[in-house]
C-alpha cells in the first residue's frame, strides 16, 4: 500500500499541485438492532478507499476512489488536481496551508471483542419492562487510516470503537408520554463496562418521572447542571462556534456560522471560572485520536481560559488564515469525506467545588441531571434544552421532580457561572457537520456547575 500512496503523491505533484494529501481509510465492523426485545437486524460492513486532497492553481480539490487499484487511485488524483484548478480560477484569494512539523508514526489500539447482537440482548435484559418502546442499536467497528502528505506526514492508526444507542418511551395516555435516549461507547471494551447499570437506571426513571415530574413555573432560577448537561452545553455553544471554518463562513449554507466573527475572535464568553478544552488524546474515549487527517499531532486545544476565547478548532487551511499552527482538528468520517475542523473530546475543566456542595449552596433553584430535546441556532447563540430529569432546589435540598426547558443565550449561560465542581464525566455523541454529511465520534462533558439566574419555561 505504501508504494501506491507514495506514487499517488508524486503523481499529484507532477500534475502541478503544490500540495497533495493521500489517505487510505477502511471502516469495518458489525451492527445490530433490537426492537422491544425482538431481533430487528444484524449487519456486517466494510468500506475502504483512497481520498486525495490537493491544492492547485490556488484552489482546493477533493476526490475519492473506492478502490486500491493504481488506475483508480491515479484517477482520483487527476480529478482532485483538476477540480482544484477549476475552483482556483474563480477564487479571489488562493488557498494556503499552515506549515507544520508533521507526524511520522503509527499506533494501534486492541480490538473490541464484543458481539453487537449479544451486547444489545444483554442490555435489553436490564431495561425496564414496563416501557412502551425500548430500542437498542449497537455498532462495533474498527477504523484504519494511513495518511501521507506531500510535505512529509506519514501516519497509520487503527482505532476500534463501540457505540450503543438506547431509546426508551413510556406512553400512558392518561399521563402523557416520556422518552429517554441513552448513548454509550468508547474505544475499548471497558468503555461499555457498567452499561447495564446505566440502562437499568435510566430506563426505570422514565415511568417514575412521567408520573411524578410537574411543569416548572416559568421564571429565573439558579440552575445546577450535572455533567451530562455540561457536555451538551460545551459541545453546542463552545465547540461548534469555535470551529474556524464556521467562523470564516465555509459552513454558512449548512451547519451554519458562529457568534464569533472574523476580526473579533478573542472575546469574553464566560465568567473567570470557565475553562473549556478539546483534547483528542484522552485514552479510551469515543473521540480519541493521536494524529489528525492532515498528519498533525493532537494536543489539547484551550478553547476558553478564564472565560476568554483563546483558541479555535482548526485545520491547516484556516490556521494559515489566522497565521497560527494547526491544532490537529482536521477529521474525516470515511475515505470519501473531506477532512474539516471537528471536535473530539470537549469538556469544561473541573473546579474545586464538591457537586453536593453546589446544591447545598443554592437557596432557590433547579438541578438538571439530563436532557431530552435540545437545539441551538446556527450561530450557536440561542439554545433550548429540554429537561428529562430535574428537581427543584429549596434551601439546598432537592425537592419535587420538574419538567420544562432551559432557554438560554450562550454569553448568559457561561457568563453567570459561579461554581464549578471537581467531578468529571464524559458522554458519547455523534457530531454532525459538513456536506456531504459527516458524523464523527465525540465525547462531551466535564463537572457539575452552577449558572445563576437563567430563564426556565414549562
Amino acid at each position, binding site marked *: 500500500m505504501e508504494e501506491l500512496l507514495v506514487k499517488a503523491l508524486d503523481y499529484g505533484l507532477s500534475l502541478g499541485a503544490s500540495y497533495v494529501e493521500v489517505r487510505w481509510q477502511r471502516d469495518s465492523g458489525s451492527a445490530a438492532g433490537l*426492537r422491544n426485545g*425482538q*431481533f430487528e*437486524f*444484524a*449487519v*456486517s460492513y*466494510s*468500506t475502504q*478507499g483512497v481520498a486525495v486532497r490537493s491544492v492547485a492553481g490556488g*484552489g*482546493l*480539490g*477533493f*476526490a*475519492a*476512489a*473506492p*478502490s486500491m487499484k493504481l488506475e483508480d487511485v491515479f484517477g*482520483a488524483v487527476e*480529478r482532485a488536481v483538476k*477540480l*482544484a484548478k*477549476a*475552483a482556483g480560477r*474563480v*477564487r479571489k484569494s488562493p488557498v494556503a496551508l499552515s506549515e507544520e512539523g508533521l507526524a511520522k508514526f503509527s499506533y494501534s489500539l486492541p480490538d473490541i471483542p464484543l458481539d453487537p447482537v449479544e451486547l444489545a440482548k444483554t442490555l435489553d435484559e436490564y431495561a425496564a419492562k414496563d416501557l*412502551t*418502546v425500548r430500542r437498542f442499536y449497537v455498532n462495533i467497528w474498527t477504523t484504519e487510516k494511513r495518511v501521507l502528505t506531500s510535505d512529509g506526514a506519514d501516519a497509520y492508526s487503527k482505532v476500534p470503537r463501540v457505540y450503543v444507542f438506547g431509546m426508551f*418511551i413510556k*406512553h400512558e395516555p392518561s399521563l402523557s*408520554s*416520556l*422518552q429517554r435516549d441513552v448513548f454509550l461507547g468508547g474505544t475499548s471494551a471497558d468503555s461499555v463496562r457498567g452499561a447495564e447499570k446505566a440502562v437499568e437506571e435510566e430506563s426505570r426513571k422514565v415511568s417514575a418521572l412521567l408520573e411524578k415530574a410537574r411543569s416548572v413555573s416559568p421564571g429565573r432560577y439558579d440552575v445546577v447542571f450535572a455533567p451530562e448537561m455540561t457536555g451538551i452545553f460545551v459541545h453546542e455553544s463552545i465547540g461548534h462556534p469555535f470551529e474556524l471554518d464556521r467562523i*470564516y*463562513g*465555509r*459552513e454558512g*449554507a*449548512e451547519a*451554519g456560522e458562529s457568534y464569533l466573527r472574523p476580526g473579533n475572535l478573542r472575546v469574553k464568553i464566560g465568567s473567570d471560572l470557565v475553562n473549556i478544552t478539546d483534547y483528542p488524546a484522552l485514552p479510551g474515549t469515543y473521540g480519541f485520536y493521536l494524529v489528525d487527517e492532515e498528519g498533525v499531532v493532537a494536543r489539547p486545544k484551550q478553547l476558553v481560559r478564564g472565560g476568554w476565547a483563546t483558541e479555535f478548532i482548526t485545520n491547516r487551511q484556516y490556521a494559515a488564515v489566522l497565521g497560527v499552527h494547526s491544532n490537529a482538528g482536521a477529521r474525516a468520517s470515511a475515505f*470519501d*469525506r*473531506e477532512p474539516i475542523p471537528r471536535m473530539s473530546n470537549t469538556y469544561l475543566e473541573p473546579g474545586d467545588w464538591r457537586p453536593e456542595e453546589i446544591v447545598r449552596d443554592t437557596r432557590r433553584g433547579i438541578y438538571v441531571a439530563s436532557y*431530552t*430535546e435540545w*437545539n*441551538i*441556532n*446556527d450561530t450557536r*447563540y*440561542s439554545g*433550548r434544552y*429540554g429537561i428529562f430529569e430535574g428537581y427543584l432546589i429549596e434551601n439546598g435540598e432537592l425537592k419535587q421532580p420538574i419538567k420544562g*426547558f432551559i*432557554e438560554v443565550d450562550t454569553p448568559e449561560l457561561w457568563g453567570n457561572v459561579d461554581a464549578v465542581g471537581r467531578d468529571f464525566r464524559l458522554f458519547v455523541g455523534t457530531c454532525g457537520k459538513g*456536506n*456531504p*454529511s459527516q458524523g464523527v465520534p465525540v465525547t462531551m462533558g466535564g463537572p457539575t456547575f452552577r449558572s445563576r439566574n437563567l430563564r426556565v*419555561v414549562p
Partner: protein
Amino acid sequence: MILKILQRHVDEAVVVKTRVRNYMVRFANNEITAFKSWDVDNTYIYLAKGRRTTFLSATGTPDLAQIEEAVKRLASLPDDPLYVPVEGPRPLTRRESPEDFEKLPDLVKKAVDSAAGVERSAGVVNLAYVEVEYEDSAGRGGQYAVNRVYMAMRSFLGELSATAAAAGRRVADIKAEKLGEENSQLLSLAKGLPQRRIEPTKADLLLSPLVFGHLVGELLYFWTNGSEVVASSSRYTKEDVGRQAASELLTVVEKTYDESAHGYVPFDFEGTPPRPVEVYRRGVLSGFIHTRRTAHALGMEPTGHALYGWARPVPGHVEIAPGDGPADLEALLADLRNGFYIHGNWYTRYQNVKTGQFSTVGRDVALEVKDGRPAAVVKYIRIADTMENVVRNVAELSKAQKQVYWWDMPVPANAPYAIIRQIGITT
C-alpha cells in the same frame, strides 16, 4: 457470480450493487471553497437461512472470508420476526446518461451574481449519478442509472440571511438565477425593519416550502413509517388508517415513484418498484411507507421503500399537494394577516417521537407580520409544538409548489407555502 456462491450456503440471497459518482461544488463568501468528486462503489447482500436473516455490505465486492463470516453468524442469530420470502414483481430496467459535472461552477456564478443587494452568499451544488444492479435467488434482476441534482444558497446581509433551494433530476432543472433573486427579494423585505425577540406564545405561522417540506418529511420518517408503527414508536397504529388525522386541506403523497422527483428510484433494495403512497388524503390518514418485511408484519401491501437497505423503510421524496392560496410571498403575508413568517429552519429535535413534541430553530429571516405586512424581524425564533398540531392546523396552502432539498432537510420535497393556525413559538 456472487449470487451463485451465496446460494451454496443459504436458502435465499439478494445482491444489490450500487455505484454513485458524486460531484459537489461548495462556495462561501461568493467564492468556491472546494470542488469535490467522490465515487461510491458498494455491494449490499441480504442472506436468509430458514427465518434467520442478516445483511452484509462492502466496498467493491465482499471477499470470501467476509461472506463466510456472515453465513457463520446466521447460525447464531435468532429468528427474524419480520422474515418474508424473497419474491415480488420483476424490477424495472432503466438507464439514463450521466449529466455533465463541468457545468456546476457556472450555476454557482449565476446564483451568486443574481443575488442583488446582498453582501455575500454561501452554498452548494451537488450532482449524483446513481447506478444500481439488483439480483436475487428468486431469479429476479434489474438495473437502473439515474441523475440527481440539487442546489442551495444562503445569502447574507448584515445579521440577516435568506436561503433558497432547488432540486431536480437534471442540471437544467436548476434555475440558479432564481435562487439569487429569491434571496434578494426576502432580504429586501426584511432590510431596515426593527429586530426583536419574542416570549413563548401561540401564533399563526406562514411556513415557506423549505420549512413545511422539512416538517412533513420528518413526519414520514417517524410516524407514517411501517418500521416505527411495528415498534410502537409512531403516533399512529394500523387502526388509525382511515381516520381524520390532519387538516382537510392536507394531501401528502410519497413520491419516490415519480420520475421528475429528485428522490426517484425505479426499484428498491427488495426489487420492488416504489408506488405512490397517499399518507394523508384530505387529512385522512391513508397509508404508511413499507418494506416487504414491515408490510407483511402489519398485513399491508409493500410500497417499495427499502431505499437504503433492508432494515427499515425510508421516504425518498415527499409531495404536499398545493392548495388555492396565492403563489407569491407578499400576498401570502396578507392572507396570514397577523403572525409570523418562518423562511428557514434547522435542528429539529424531539422531546418524544411518539407524541411528536418537537422544536425546530428558525434559521433565516423570520418576519413578524401585522395587518398583512412585515413589521419586524424576529431573532432566534423556534417552533415548539407537536407534529399533530402542525398537520391538523393547516389553514391555507399556496397554489404554487417548489421542489426543494438542502443539507438539513430529512427528505426532498415538492411543497407549497402553508399557513398554520395557533402553533407554539418560543425563543
